[in-house]
């Protein structure tokens, strides 16, 4: 393994890029966008370089570690490192940022904020995303967790739709509230670690090896879990998401729902389960109930939406229910399905938001009833939208199917009836996606649609194509991602002291039985 500080580079390059963007001439927005795209492509190239160096066999360990002492008085280190799960999430983010830049090329031209500000904020956000997934020190994680809010807040509040103020403030307050609860737990954890070992620490591995007594664990768990449940978001902490997603530009919505919210589920998997195993098992029934309610409720509300972007946001509420379910059923299949789902959901939501964004910007309305018969005037747009939608409803052959199937199998292994209820979510998913497709794309074409909606341009196709390719490839061949994820999942399963239930029918192909 090379000694090149890959993660530090991933963190610093976008920040330097953002700083340079702010000094580019004010009157040439195109230059800012080109430069921003270039920086995000460099970050992507670096990520690919790092992923190639990743040792899959040791995917449970933190690799590319980099650490220096930051605040010795609190035992805080600036410590970075990725395991398999963090790696694929960083890779997803690095892949989506250039796509978002390209797809949203003209989204902010007429808005009140400056274009270079938009580009700089996205790059800052990218750095924060890398940081939050790569931090192996809890204090550093918290800092990135909170710091991430600032660029998103400005991205929504300055460049968003008509109710952007309301959405931005709601988003910020929900997140801050969660963040402060996490801060309380974080401080508590630090004090507990100081009591047990004599020296307070924020190092993840050290904290995961502490044997905290179950009662203390419960309190600490709650602080972390609520913060993550708001971020993810789980029902009933989800109400900020539809507002934030609907009022932001499509690009921001992709980064917000597709990437940022993964911090919530990532945090549950990495931090809640591994740091507080007893409390996690204690909370399992409630979390599973919330997750199942989220799956069904999100899907039902999505069916009732009249606004395309809000509909997509509610589908995500449903999907986050699946992810949380997979994590808390405490089976290997469920958890690796969830980890894979985080990646797949990122891509399929990105495709949905971006293509819906193309559609909305052409017509100038977000309401489903204003559309109809788009497939006649814009066949490529309609076709890509259909593929993205089918991926969202987990059609076999597209990526989400694999992960959703794994989650359901994992659930079924342990809680059969929960698995049955959760499967309803798939049926409802078919309803909300296909109804939306039918109402917007098929049928007679209203005059406004016929006049205004043109087919996708070269730039837009270029932006969406890579995502659709990834969706199809991961649908047929998810093995590379699963290979990287699974060792880390085994570590989590070991930490939370859970083992898969014995199959009721003896496996045929495998030799040994647990």
């Amino acid at each position: 393994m090379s000694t090149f500080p890959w993660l530090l580079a991933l963190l610093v390059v976008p920040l330097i890029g953002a700083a340079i963007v702010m000094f580019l001439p004010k009157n040439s927005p195109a230059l800012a966008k080109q430069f921003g795209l270039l920086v995000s492509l460099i970050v992507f190239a670096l990520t690919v370089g790092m992923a190639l160096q990743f040792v899959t066999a040791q995917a449970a360990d933190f690799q590319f570690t980099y650490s220096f002492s930051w605040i010795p008085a609190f035992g805080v280190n600036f410590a970075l490192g990725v395991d398999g799960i963090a790696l694929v999430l960083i890779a997803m983010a690095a892949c989506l940022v250039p796509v978002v830049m390209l797809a949203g090329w003209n989204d902010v031209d007429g808005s009140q904020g400056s274009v270079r500000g938009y580009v700089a904020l996205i790059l800052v956000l990218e750095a924060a995303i890398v940081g939050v997934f790569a931090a192996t020190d809890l204090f550093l994680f918290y800092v990135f967790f909170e710091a991430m809010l600032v660029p998103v807040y400005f991205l929504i509040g300055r460049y968003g739709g008509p109710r952007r103020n309301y959405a931005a403030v709601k988003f910020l307050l929900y997140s801050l509230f969660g963040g402060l609860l996490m801060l309380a737990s974080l401080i508590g954890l630090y004090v507990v670690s100081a009591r047990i070992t004599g020296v307070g620490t924020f190092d993840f591995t050290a904290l995961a090896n502490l044997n905290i007594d179950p009662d203390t664990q419960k309190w600490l768990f709650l602080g972390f879990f609520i913060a993550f449940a708001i971020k993810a978001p789980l029902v009933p902490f989800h109400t900020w998401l539809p507002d934030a997603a609907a009022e932001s530009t499509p690009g921001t919505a992709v980064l917000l729902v597709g990437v940022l919210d993964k911090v919530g589920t990532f945090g549950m998997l990495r931090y809640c389960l591994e740091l507080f195993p007893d409390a996690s098992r204690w909370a399992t029934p409630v979390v599973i109930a919330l997750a199942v309610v989220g799956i069904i409720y999100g899907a039902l509300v999505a069916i009732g939406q009249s606004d395309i972007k809000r509909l997509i946001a509610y589908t995500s509420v449903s999907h986050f229910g699946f992810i949380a379910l997979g994590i808390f059923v405490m089976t290997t299949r469920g958890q690796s399905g969830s980890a894979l789902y985080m990646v797949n959901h990122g891509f399929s939501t990105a495709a949905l938001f971006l293509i819906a964004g193309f559609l909305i910007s052409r017509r100038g309305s977000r309401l489903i009833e204003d559309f109809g018969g788009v497939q006649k005037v814009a066949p490529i747009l309609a076709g890509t939208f259909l593929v993205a939608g089918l991926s969202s409803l987990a059609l076999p052959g597209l990526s989400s199917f694999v992960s959703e199937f794994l989650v359901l199998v994992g659930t079924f292994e342990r809680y059969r009836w929960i698995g049955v209820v959760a499967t309803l979510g798939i049926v409802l998913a078919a309803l909300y996606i296909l109804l939306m497709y039918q109402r917007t794309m098929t049928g007679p074409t209203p005059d406004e649609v016929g006049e205004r909606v043109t087919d996708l341009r070269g730039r837009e196709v270029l932006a969406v194509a890579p995502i659709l390719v990834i969706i199809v490839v991961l649908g047929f061949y998810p093995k590379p991602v699963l290979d990287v994820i699974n060792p880390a999942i085994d570590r989590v399963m070991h930490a939370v002291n859970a083992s898969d239930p014995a199959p009721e029918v003896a496996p045929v192909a495998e030799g040994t039985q647990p």
Partner: protein
Amino acid sequence: MSSLLAAASFETPTIEYDQLAPIIIIFGVAVVSLLVEAFAPRQWRRVIQLIVVFTGLAASFAAVVMIRGTQHIAAMGSVAVDGPTLFMQGSILVLAFIAALVMAERQVDPLGDAFAPRASALPGSSDELAFTQLGWLQTEVWPLFLFSVGGMLLFPASSDLLTMFVALEVLSLPLYIMAGLARRRRLLSQEAALKYFVLGAFSSAFFLYGMALFYGYAGSVDLSAISDALTANAGSMWLVVTATALVSVGLLFKIGAVPFHQWTPDVYQGSPTPITGFMAACTKVAAFGALLRIMYVALGGIRWDWRPMMYVIAALTMIVGTLFALTQTDIKRMLAYSSIAQAGFMLVGVIATNQAGLSGTMVYLVAYGIATIGAFAIVTLVRDSTGEASHLSQWAGLGRKAPIVASAFALFLLAFAGIPLTSGFTGKFAVFTAGIAGGATPVVIIGLIASAVAAFFYIRVIVLMFFNEPSSDDSVSVVVPSGFTTLAITISVGLTLVIGLVPQLILNLANQAGLFIR
């Protein structure tokens, strides 16, 4: 004859001039400043005063640095020169330096500076009009400022209650006058001064009465003697509890803790804004220094008796400060209530009664003080034709009119809200960690919830500045200040970021300061 005998047995007091140098320098400079005011020709006064003030502050700070590491009770047991004292004295001097830069500004107000041409003239009288038309500019604020700073340096260092009371009065009396010096909105300013004076005098009386009861209990006003008497469990517990309550009232008044906070919004609003910044930052450092010293040194032995009271006061201060700040429409009043809430957060460090609590409170005080002076400095820049435009609606769209100034203000607000990578987070983290370690978890949780609510009104101002359309009122503009205010804001922004990004520097200083000596 008898008088001669008395003189023979009189013990010459030893005065450690080197260890008292920071305080002596400031008082000496204050006297010089007073003489300059009396004898220097009018056109030279400003230049001489500024040279005197800034060299005095710098020399005093140099003296603090020179005697670092001292652990000694100087001046016959009256002044404790120890790590915490020196840390607070250094902080007060740095904060006073930044505040003095803002006070020295003469470019933002077209009529001159922030201070009245003749403070004694009745508001609205023909006298006042005449003096304004003459274009007089006064420099009388500087000796007052220096005396006040001198009192602040002595306050946290006082090792007996009598010295502490003298310091309290020396720091307060000039402040009462300075509060009434505003050039604009004279009536509000005079009301502020009177209110501050009456309530301040009232609280001093409480302090004095408490001191008398302590003397009745311990036979001494010396802090360590009181501590010894408590350990020996000498007299009536009832006496001690009453004395503690009365002395605390005096100090909590200066801190602005609920329920002794009513003066804060009026005084902050009415005072000349540069003075508000100075008062909000430096007084708080000095008063917390004194409170910490009394609570840790004299009353450390009975902390189980006073902690419940402080629990309630800290929780109330956080809650009331936050809730009232939510409803404010005037930026200065909002900052006043915010400073009440911040005092509540700092009280968590006092409650902790451990070394982390002491150093955490000190770090918080510095972080808060710097952001406060910076924020009030920016308030002086947003003006319309009648003076400062302090109504929140006038701040709408400021981000468009003056992006750099608005960004600096946003940074200070984020620091108040305790967002990571700003100084406020370092402070909050330090006191909350100490609070949980000291067993005050419920108060810390109230503090975190209050922080979440507080974030709302800080963020609301950011929303107003950056996301709202500029107000239709075109007269509001951000004036370009001279180098003084620019430097003050630059230093504040720089320190806010440094304490946020590299907190180790200040944490080391605070931790090395160690504990109070007895």
